[in-house]
């Protein structure tokens, strides 16, 4: 019988890249069980998840459409988590941004596109910041756990959206719980014919670049990374961790709000209750899978977008319920987190 001991060692540098890849493989392995239970072939399922969506231009562009809000919420969550602020409220902040952008879109109907679109972007960001403010203040002033508060704020705003759409903003034309359409000038331009891909995607990529620069190249970014890694170490070095965390929380909210504005301006053109399919929560998966690195998160967002597009094909072609996509995504989160924990240990023969 071999004798082992388990000891704690610092994680190797390559783990950051290898873990997400291995996590994907392990996830597929685990989810194969479900696919088999549904009576389908796992290899066919994963082929349809990954390869089929990329096989035509329209389909590939649709993957990018699906990725756009995920890139933004992924950036939002990455930004907050880097500073040690666990923003679970990206979903609610997204809706807050959507509300603000919709308001701009249906109110200032006489302004041209060149003004409207930046205005909607700014409004979306502002909406997200405002919605992130209360949990952020509670955390830095009273040490109230932000996981709980941001999560609860999500519920509050969902009810508020429902109120708006069934009340003051209910469409007078159709009577359905949906807002009036934003003005034509406020529609985000499409990038390719026959595809829904819009300039929101470009905005998302710009945000990735800005977030990258902020985190890696600015003093604020260094302070955030310090605070997130070791609050005591950062405080000892004289960093104002309260202010740093507050900024991180608010900017994170703003970026999530931006995701809402982009979905309104690029896809839906009016406010409805289902503009988000859990994008705020998926942003957490994206950020974790990307090892909290902006580029990693972007790749992760596109991968999740790929699976999301693929799961529709899988359900149509193989008869596996479309929820398999959700199961894969969330299993991926659990596996990735487990691997990030285990990377700190080594089994040694004694």
């Amino acid at each position, binding site marked *: 019988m071999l004798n082992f001991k388990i000891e704690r060692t610092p994680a190797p540098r390559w783990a950051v890249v290898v873990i997400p890849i291995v996590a994907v493989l392990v996830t597929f392995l685990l989810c194969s069980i479900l696919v088999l239970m549904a009576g389908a072939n796992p290899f066919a399922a994963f082929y349809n998840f990954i390869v089929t969506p990329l096989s035509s231009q329209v389909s590939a562009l649709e993957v990018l459409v699906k990725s756009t809000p995920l890139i933004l919420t992924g950036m939002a969550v990455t930004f907050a988590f880097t500073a040690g602020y666990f923003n679970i409220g990206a979903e609610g902040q997204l809706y807050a941004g959507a509300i603000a952008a919709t308001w701009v879109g249906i109110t200032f109907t006489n302004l041209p596109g060149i003004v409207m679109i930046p205005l909607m972007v700014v409004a979306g960001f502002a909406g997200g910041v405002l919605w992130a403010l209360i949990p952020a203040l509670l955390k830095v002033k009273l040490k109230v756990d932000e996981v709980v508060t941001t999560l609860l704020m999500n519920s509050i705003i969902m009810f508020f959206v429902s109120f708006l759409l069934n009340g003051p903003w209910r469409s007078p034309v159709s009577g359905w719980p949906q807002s009036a359409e934003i003005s034509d000038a406020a529609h985000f331009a499409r990038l390719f014919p026959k595809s829904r891909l819009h300039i929101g995607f470009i905005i998302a990529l710009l945000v990735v670049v800005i977030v990258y620069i902020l985190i890696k190249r600015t003093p604020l970014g260094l302070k955030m*990374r310090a605070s997130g890694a070791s609050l005591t170490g950062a405080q000892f070095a*004289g960093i104002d961790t309260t202010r740093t965390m507050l900024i991180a929380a608010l900017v994170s909210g703003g970026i999530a709000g931006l995701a809402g504005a982009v979905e309104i301006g690029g896809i839906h053109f009016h406010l409805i209750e289902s503009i988000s399919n859990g994008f705020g929560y998926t942003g957490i998966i994206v950020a974790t899978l990307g090892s909290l690195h902006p580029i990693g998160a972007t790749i992760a967002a596109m991968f999740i977008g790929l699976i999301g597009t693929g799961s529709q094909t899988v359900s149509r072609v193989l008869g596996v319920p479309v929820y398999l996509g959700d199961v894969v995504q969330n299993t991926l989160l659990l596996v990735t987190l487990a691997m990030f924990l285990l990377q700190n240990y080594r089994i040694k023969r004694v």
Partner: protein
Amino acid sequence: MYAVEMLGITKQFGNVLASDNVHFCLEKGEIHALLGENGAGKTTLMRILYGLYKADAGEIFIDGQKVEVTSPKQAIQAGIGMVTQHFTLVPTLTVAENIVLGYHDKHTVSKSEIEAKVKQASEKYGIHVEPAALVRQLSVGERQRVEILKALYRNARILIMDEPTAVLVPQEVDVLFESLLRLVKSGLSVIFISHKLHEVMAVCDRITVLRNGHVTGTVRKDETTQQDLANMMVGRETFGVSRQAKRETGKVIYTVKNLSANNKQGLPTLKDVSFEVHAGEILGVAGVSGNGQTELTQVLTGTLKPTEGSVSLGQVDLTQADPHAITEAGVGRTPEDRHEGSIGSLSVAENLALEDLDQFIHNGLLDQAAITENAKKYIDEFQIKASPSDQLRKLSGGNMQKVILARALCRKPKLVIASQPTRGLDVGATEYVRNKLLAERDRGAGVVLLSEDLDEIIALSDRIAVIYEGCIRGIIPTADATAEKLGMMMAGAC
């Protein structure tokens, strides 16, 4: 017959000999003190008895029978109970639930049944507890009583108490001693780990003194004095050696007056601390750990706000200052725990730049080149075996400490606060750090050296302040410090 005999116990951790051929015997019905300063080996020895550690050599006999205690469960079965400094109670459960936790023979327990059992035990042993009370509502003294009853409930005939009075107020200490004396009359034997001479003399029958892992004496209380014990506790060759001649020091640059502070749990831990530091001197703060050094370090480095008193560097008032302001005023600080006071996942260069980011900003962005240059300079000067981009946590303890020291000393501070600067370092790194502190003194800075290593304090300091239970018991020139004087102050005896 002895209740416990530990013969020839030897235990090594890496290259530290924690227990060196220790003989320890506990008579039945006695309260026996284990006395010693930091690192003497008291807790290690008791952990071996309680099955938490396995001795490398030696034998243990309980009531004359040789035993192999390989786990606390076995120790409990052998009749040994331990009450540690940090309680192992579940705050959200009741007293009764905590006491029976892990020790009842049925699968379902009714609340009234266990409360009745605990009430019975409480009366039998004369340890007053409220079985239905929630632990989180209890005071520290009450919680300790629950821990004691927990051990007795498991039929402990030998009770180990590790620094029991460290967390108690004087009234609770009296209650504790009264309980112990009563329990001992009905057959319990107690091992009392402590560094406090007056308590040991008050309640114990015999005393074993440990120093550096070996026994320096076992005596009966009535055959010894506090001075003798102090000598046994702290006496070493270095006391006889002539030290560097008394040097001229400059004017007072740092004044701490009537400083009081509460620890993170809200208990008063610093009481009316006052001292001054001159330019060109090292003031050593000696004391057994747990007597307020941590809180003093935290207040002086800016991570804990004092409740009373003042701290000033020259004309600058630093009493309520935050770490940044303190650094700006010209104080170089090292944290007590280098892992908590630095950022392991950032690079060496980033850690070095962290206290003074403003000088590395160019057009709003970080000037990477300048940060790296800065790091190279200090890596060179302090002989740090690392490159600027290495992650700090990959470095050895010694190199990590050098980075922290470089950060503290790089702006040529007027005052250096060095807290446990050589803790856990190898011989080479320790030499280096100590020489650097001496160099700072020679440069004209003042140094406050807080260290649990008395050898270090004696070797480096010009004057020594002893802290005990949050107060400064005395400040004496090192040339006048004898084992007796220091030991008495450190153990609260004078």
